[in-house]
């Protein structure tokens, strides 16, 4: 009884206010509702657009081969199977590749972000001669496609030498190709995958932190390094987390550097790229007869493989999503 009464009064109250405002309130309410409905439709459509391929892959990965050819079966498999996962895991060498990728991505991401944070801080806080020149170099590093220098990097590490020292000691230059060492060296020198971008982002973040805290630390007798570690690093946690995530994820899926420097190790990214080619050989080995693999089936295995590789990233993303999204969008990148 009382409930309907309050409702009624609320309605009459609204009516009264609407009359007072000359119909403006009602108009505004309707407009607001219309806008939010349009927005919801639009966002639903776009979210579906982004999620649909993943959903599609999930449904395809559980299908048997005959389901793929059945025009009636679109998203729910008729003959449910997990065979595809077994085959994909076998071909990808999944466990080994996963461990390898995890190790490589983690170490490289840690190394890259550690170095980039140092450099970014140096650019943000210190005044030194030729600073703008060196910063222009950072921009150049962002702009130069790694493909341009890839051929000569290739040779650089094939005949590796530091100013002729190794040549003098061992008699010939080192062949560092086929080991992961060159890539760690590149990362330590900020020349890894998209490292210029990390330096740029970290620099922007440090520039936005007020200088008072640092000055207080200096006055209290803190050295430069100690100030950096004790005062500035804790404040830069959000940007470091998100850069670390970027670095990890991009390293995980990277085909270019992995193919060039880490080609001998089974990594998820490189074995995924070869998946379709190895499928034929695999089936031949298992069945004992030479067969050509149908297009639909190889694509089905490819979808399964892709899914298996994305899953660790999605799990990571779910956990770190809040830090990732919020920290990045609150960084306030300015030119």
């Amino acid at each position: 009884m009382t409930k309907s009464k309050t409702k009624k009064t609320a309605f009459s109250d609204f009516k009264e206010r609407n009359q007072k405002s000359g119909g403006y309130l009602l108009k505004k309410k309707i407009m607001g509702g219309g806008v939010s409905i349009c927005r919801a439709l639009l966002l639903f459509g776009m979210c579906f657009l982004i999620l649909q391929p993943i959903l599609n892959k999930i449904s395809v990965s559980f299908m048997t081969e005959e389901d793929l050819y059945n025009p009636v079966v679109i998203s729910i498999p008729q003959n449910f199977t997990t065979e595809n996962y077994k085959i994909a895991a076998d071909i990808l060498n999944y466990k080994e590749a996963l461990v390898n990728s995890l190790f490589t991505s983690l170490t490289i991401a840690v190394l890259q972000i550690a170095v980039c944070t140092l450099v970014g801080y140096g650019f943000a806080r210190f005044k030194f001669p030729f600073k703008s020149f060196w910063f222009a170099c950072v921009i150049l590093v962002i702009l130069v496609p790694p493909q341009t220098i890839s051929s000569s990097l290739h040779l650089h590490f094939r005949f590796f030498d530091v100013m002729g020292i190794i040549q003098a000691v061992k008699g010939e230059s080192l062949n560092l190709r086929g080991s992961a060492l060159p890539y760690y060296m590149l990362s330590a020198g900020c020349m890894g995958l998209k490292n210029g971008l990390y330096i740029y982002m970290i620099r922007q973040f440090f520039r936005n932190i007020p200088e008072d805290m640092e000055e207080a630390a200096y006055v209290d007798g803190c050295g430069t390094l100690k100030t950096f570690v004790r005062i500035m690093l804790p404040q830069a946690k959000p940007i470091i987390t998100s850069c670390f995530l970027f670095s990890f994820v991009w390293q995980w899926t990277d085909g270019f550097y992995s193919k060039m420097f880490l080609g001998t190790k089974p990594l998820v990214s490189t074995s995924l790229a070869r998946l379709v080619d190895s499928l034929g050989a695999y089936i031949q080995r298992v069945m004992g007869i030479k067969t050509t693999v149908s297009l639909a089936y190889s694509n089905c295995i490819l979808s399964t493989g892709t899914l298996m590789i994305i899953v660790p990233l999605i799990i990571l993303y779910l956990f770190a999503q809040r830090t990732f999204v919020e920290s990045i969008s609150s960084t306030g990148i300015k030119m």
Partner: protein
Amino acid sequence: MKKQKGKLAGLQKRKAISGYLFISPFIIGFLMFMVKPLCQSFYMSFCTVELGSGIFNEIWIGLENFVEAFTIDPDYNRLLVEEFTRMMAYSLGIIVFSFFVSLILNQEFKGRAMVRAIFFLPVILSSGVIIGLETDNQLMDTLAQTIEMTTENVSITDALEEVLRTAGVGVRAFEEVFELIDNIYDVAIASGIQIIIFLSGLQTIPSSMYEAASIEGCTKWESLWKITFPMISSLFLVNWIYTVIDFCMRSDNGVIEKIQTVMLDQMNYGLASAMSWIYFIIVLAFVGLTSFFISKGVYYYD
């Protein structure tokens, strides 16, 4: 007085030294792994490279590699032109799309956190090898065809395209737009970072500006053009550069694939260097030229 001045110079010197120490990893890396390979690959593009055991020889042949890339190689010219037109259309599409999406994502509504999470998912999904595999997935194409056939051509976009085509004005421009709309997935999946950058810019605009404008009788549409647009115009520049570079370095880019095959499969380092230098200079010139024009329109608030 004099003593104090000397002390200040000492502090500045110390600061300069520690600054150099902080950026020293970058300097070393830049000199070792960027300058040297860059010069070398520039030199190599004028040579043929012969690989021997333990050594490699570079034999100067002048501009022959460049001539070969342009006139002898059957694919290179075609790929350059194709990728370049695709890049322009897509970059424009990506900028418009990401600006639009970030405007929506900046508003208050229920479930915003979830929608944001979904929109940033492409940052993960569109990276590295995955994007290359995505584009030539015939199974998905056949599935899409099946769905299209069962729905018997009741497609709004088709009908709209038909109407616009029969209108007969600016058909070629429309064709580009149609292609973009048909491939809206590619655009959406490539614009994760751009959305993030735009969002971060939108959040730095003080809300008092909008309030003042609306009190003065400014409509939402007007404040979009008079406040939002100028305030984040500098980010258009950043995003444009990032988009173009990102598009040019994607591993499913035709030119990049071509360079990779020439280098790794045919072992023709000289030709590969020449090709990548041509590509790099074209891209750099394009980025420089366009960003020069964009930066003229950029408005700086402070």
